[in-house]
């Protein structure tokens, strides 16, 4: 698997994400790809990291959505390639229209950095295959605008089609339905606010994030390496 971690100006979880991929999966290549890159077509999976792209000025993700590399990211996503956005990456995917809904400021208007309980709602996606449905994960959140908003109809659709992959076990930020992570209709794009790349080692508090990355890797292996 060749993985791209996109570096926007202001990304700051890019290296953490690349450690998660290179130290804990068997990915052959993990590249930090600058926002100016014209194409990410050569990669099997594309990761949008956390941080404050373009300072998160105006709205989180609003400006990054137009970064040069995003055209190719959008094109690859539409063709079914694996795209994962974490935190700011999720916000960018929302602004880019690859996922439905929008982010508002946390309900108490404060940035929150804390390890929280996250529930696996759907273990049948390429991002969550190695988890058990209903399992509780300890994963850090770190965001000021993670209050997920969508209209009632969108919410019903998300629910009905099992596109809600992760929820918070407590109402940490005001999100509709305590949503922590959703996929697109095709299931190849996931956005989530919690930071699995910060939950890779017990030394740092939790290793519950590992299986997210190994799930992505296994999905790729299962769909690509069959013949060899």
């Amino acid at each position, binding site marked *: 698997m060749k993985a791209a971690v996109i570096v926007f100006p202001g990304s700051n979880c890019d290296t953490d994400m690349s450690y998660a991929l290179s130290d804990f999966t068997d990915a052959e290549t993990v590249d930090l790809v600058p926002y100016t890159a014209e194409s990410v077509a050569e990669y099997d999976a594309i990761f949008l990291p956390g941080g404050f792209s373009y300072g998160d000025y105006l709205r989180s993700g609003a400006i990054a959505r137009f970064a040069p590399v995003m055209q190719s990211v959008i094109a690859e996503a539409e063709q079914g390639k694996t795209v994962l956005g974490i935190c700011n990456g999720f916000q960018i995917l929302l602004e880019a229209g690859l996922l439905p809904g929008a982010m508002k400021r946390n309900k108490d208007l404060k*940035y929150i950095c804390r390890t929280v309980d996250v529930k696996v709602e759907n273990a049948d996606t390429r991002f969550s295959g190695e988890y058990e449905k209903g399992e509780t994960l300890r994963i850090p959140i770190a965001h000021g605008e993670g209050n997920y908003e969508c209209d009632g109809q969108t919410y019903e659709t998300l629910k009905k089609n099992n596109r809600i992959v992760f929820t918070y076990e407590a109402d940490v930020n005001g999100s509709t339905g305590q949503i922590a992570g959703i996929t697109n209709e095709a299931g190849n794009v996931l956005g989530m606010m919690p930071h699995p790349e910060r939950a890779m080692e017990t030394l740092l508090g939790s290793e519950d994030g590992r299986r997210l990355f190994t799930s992505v890797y296994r999905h790729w292996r299962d769909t690509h390496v069959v013949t060899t």
Partner: protein
Amino acid sequence: MSLQLEPTAEEIHAERLYADIGVKDHEYERIVQLMGRKPNYTEIGLFSVLWSEHCSYKHSKPLLKQFPSTAPHVLQGPGEGAGVVDIGDGQAVVFKVESHNHPSAVEPYQGAATGVGGILRDVFSMGARPIALLNSLRFGPLTTPRMRYLFEEVVAGISGYGNCVGVPTVGGEIQFDDTYDGNPLVNAMCIGLIDQNDLQKGIAAGVGNTVMYVGAATGRDGIHGATFASEELNEDSADKRPSVQVGDPFTEKRVLEACLEVAKSDALVGIQDMGAAGLTSSAAEMASKAGTGIAMNLDLVPQRETGMTPYEMMLSESQERMLLVVEKGKETEIEVICEKWDLETAAIGTVKEDMRLTLTFHGDVVADVPVTALTDEAPVYDVPSEEPADFREHQQRPVWQPQSSDYNETLLQLLSQPTIANKEWVYDQYDHMVQTNTVVMPGSDAAVLRIRGTEKALATSMDGNSRYIALDPKEGGKIAIAEAARNIICSGAQPLALTDCLNYGSPEEPSIYWQMEQSTAGMSEACRTFDTPVVSGNVSLYNETNGEAIYPTPVVGMVGLVEQLDHVTTQPFKQAGDVIYIIGEAEPAWGGSELQLVEDGKISGQVPTMDLELEQARQQQVLAAIRAGLVQSAHDIAEGGLAVALAECVMGTELGADVSMKDDVAELFAETQSRYVISVAVEDAEAFEQAIPAARCYGTVTDEKVLRMKTTEGQKLIEQPTDELHHVWKGAIPCFLKSKA
């Protein structure tokens, strides 16, 4: 103001206009002497900032000299952007603390944010990647809307800036006291990590080399910030509002990445951030350190506003700017890197042999000053010092006795004091995990960061209890250093070195100067005992409101080295059945204690004594026991005494404790120094007792969530459910903030 409207050299003299920008009469005369003529407006502006306390340390230099600053492991002591300490394997740790007190009092969000920005630049200008931020804060009681506003905004500013740049804020400390009501303190510390080969210095070496400007464009913000920081706050302070700068962490992040790339380029000769006094101090100091001169064409300075004068450009404190000296002919190497990060650059000057700072603007020479006159010749004052009357008085008072008889109630009261209460409300707003190295997060004695690729880690803590220093500056100064070291020890690390921020009132007041002398003497003595040199620091004076000075508040930021990750130790109890040991005897010295403050509403009398030899010996014993794997948890006994320390060990766990002791209020609440609470697995108890003979067994960790303290005769002293303790301790600060009164 246009250039034509500027006062002439004659007018500056005749109308004493220099006084308006903080230059004293005799200083002005000295300037005229050094220059051989009267300075024009731009020139007097340069002197006013470089000769301000903030840049020249004119009242504090002699005191700073007492600090030990060398040791085999010190690679760079005071004098550069930050201190540098060897941690082995060719790596070094780079750190410094800086104050942003006055700006934060006027505009708390931006004041605190730009304080973080400034200290980050001090560290990455050395070529080091910032890996951690800490902060030390002082506020008045949270009982007024104004103070709650200041507190909330300062925390938001620190969080807004540090989180965006992507450097984890891993620790710090906060105290609340009436003394800071009009003058809160905001000190920020940054730690960086570097390969020793990549170390940079702020020097303008090599005649003919190019002086380059990198980063945000210059605006009129913060003009006179540096002198502002050296004046007392008074009712007019509101009028100085334009001197508040606004930070742009997004630009800082790009400047950071660009500078770390630039630092690897052999085109770079020297680099320094434009901090206080902006272009003036960076240019003058870089030239001074290299023994060269700099000629700059101010027309080439990137400008955000139109019509800026040389005075304004030189004194602007616009943030997120760096000054570089680049080998002649290799400017494009730097430009390419900056372009990649979408940053403005401009070649604005040249390194000269003449040791002068020469500025041109619209074709005219607008300033021409010997560099040494600005830097080395800055005045240093021999300040009169006088022991204040109340010092003797406190020393001679009869020993203070607490009235407390309901110990349960007292413990809950102590836990709900904002100074002792849980600070989660604060550090939950800081991203303390980004960069994925934070092994021990905020909330324990010291934060611990692993060093990726090694088995080592860094421990760091900020401390400084000003109440002891107010009553007894010398003992208090020792205690500040000792407490920081003890926190480092408890986390399993050997203290390496420290940075300090000296926050005081006006040094021109003899009794305050005496406090400065005494406290720094105490600190120096402690530093020598622990072999923890002072490698960097900052001085913030004139912390007064309407003539009322704050308590003398030196703050210590210490860094230690954990040799092996499995030495990392934290304060909560780990397992039922573990044996609880206390090291050190309680003594009835209550001056400056939390209990005294709770009972009397003020502090008085004698502070706990500090036996440095004993302290050092115990620290090493505790560290040895930790390294030998004998320790499950370690916590020092500080504010609120043993009862509070034990409560802190059970809170947040599923455990309780059963201990018995003498029936003595000092045993419960005294803040006697050099004491620890340590829990040890039963099978290691014997070995632990051999390792630390002074340790006495007080009881055991239980799986019943209750803290029980009783007399050796079995009589109840304190009995509180762990959850109740936690509830009170955790709820205190949010509760204050919710109150509307």
